[in-house]
């Protein structure tokens, strides 16, 4: 499946060269809108070709419905995001977002395009946080809160979860390494979208965000 890339702004999913970008062609049948303003570009009518087998719009923390509507919309448009934690490079996971009215063939075409570039695709419906952020943010907030409450040292907390569950890295070390302020940004967005207390950024994340805003290292 050939596709063309239309970039609007800096992309969180593809910040650097990648086989997926290299494989694109200007005459591609499908279209992939990437960058922080990809959704806005769609809304402004940059790419509305109904005949395309698929059009994929890069998402950040917002839902696909913001761009194409919730109850009715184009059947050939999907959303996507490569999962990444803060300053870490994007992972190989692409969360591919569909709506109830999305054509299965469009999902399959987009999936094939990503998988051809070595990426792994998990399909999900259009919910705030998709799969990963929906799951990890309450867990990270709980870990930060329990650290404050003295459940164990940060090292022992991480060690327990790594030894007990085979995790490659504990949550505290992971958040520190990838930037706690990034966790605040995503968790706060989900808290606003879902209104559920577990998504409210933990104190340490709030502090990290405030320090980041003031330029304090």
């Amino acid at each position, binding site marked *: 499946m050939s596709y063309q890339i239309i970039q609007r702004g800096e992309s969180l999913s593809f910040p650097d060269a990648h086989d997926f970008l290299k494989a694109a062609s200007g005459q591609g049948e499908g279209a992939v809108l990437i960058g922080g303003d990809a959704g806005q570009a769609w809304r402004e009518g940059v790419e509305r070709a109904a005949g395309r087998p698929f059009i994929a719009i890069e998402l950040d923390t917002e839902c696909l419905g913001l761009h194409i509507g919730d109850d009715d919309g184009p059947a050939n448009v999907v959303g996507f995001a490569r*999962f990444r934690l803060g300053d870490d490079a994007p*992972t*190989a*996971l692409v*969360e591919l977002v569909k709506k109830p009215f999305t054509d299965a063939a469009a999902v399959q075409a987009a999936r094939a395009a990503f998988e051809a570039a070595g990426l*792994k695709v*998990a*399909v*999900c*419906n259009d*919910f705030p946080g*998709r*799969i*990963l952020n*929906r*799951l*990890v943010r*309450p*867990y990270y907030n*709980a*870990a930060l809160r*329990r650290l404050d409450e*003295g*459940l*164990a040292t940060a090292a*022992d*907390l991480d*060690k*327990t*979860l790594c*030894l*007990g*569950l*085979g*995790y*490659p*890295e504990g949550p505290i070390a992971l958040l520190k390494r990838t930037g706690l302020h990034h966790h605040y940004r995503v968790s706060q967005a989900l808290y606003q979208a879902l209104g559920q*207390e*577990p998504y409210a950024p933990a104190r340490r994340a709030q502090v990290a965000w405030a320090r980041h805003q003031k330029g304090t290292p």
Partner: protein
Amino acid sequence: MSEIKTVGVVGSGTMGTGIAIVVARAGLKTIVLDARQDALDRAREQAAAFLAKSVARGKLAAGQDEAIMAQWQGTTQVQDLKECDLVIEAVFEDLGVKHDLLSKLDKVCPPHTIFASNTSTISITEIAGGSGRADRVVGMHFCLPAQLMKLVEMSPGLATSEEAFAQAWAFCEALGQKPVKTRDTPGFILNYFLIPWHNDVINLVDQGVAEPADIDLAVKTALGYPLGPLELLDMVGMDTQKLLSDAMHGLTHEPRAACPPLVKRMIGAGKLGRKSGSGFHAYGDNKIFGA
């Protein structure tokens, strides 16, 4: 500090059997207590099979499995634990059941004997309160499958003496395990995080966010976890997840710890996980861990 030479393990379910393997493998006399002889026989068979497999895989020398099993003694009589220096209880997660057991043990074991609880959710301090020797009760939570996992969460109760805790800690290290100290709070570290995490995942399925296979793929790919959460839940079993959730939620009242409605529906449908042949995924066998 007296040396620990003889260890009692109470309960011969999955956890008790795994813990007894760890103790016997360390060269200590291991007395396994269970009320039912058939449960003791099954535990002994499973332990022998596990150790034989360890020999076959080159993890133990030839004949070592038989030497380890020679340390293993099963009994249905509490009185037979009278010479134990340390007793690890792995019985049903019920405070009354644990109090009843420990008060009986208190009458037959010498004063120096340490009582360790493998509880995953109940307060060590509360368990110690019904033991008759609160200063010599410690939390010693092994991970499933105990015979393979090194982590042990160790918690002192409010009345636990430093000497007893240090002795239990040294014993744990002598077993070849890796102890981590936690406060005596519900779920300690592992279950405090794991139970709500699993409930979140189950609710994700119930809310129609994604299919189980997609969720497992996403978590493994993005986070590098060895198992998807729904694969792990199928190993744990829906019945166990309900028990754990009910225990945690009863203690903490945290919404994320509440048993998801989908778990109850799956139990009703007989979809318990690997043990019943299907849960979030379908399975062709129901072998126990490490077998």
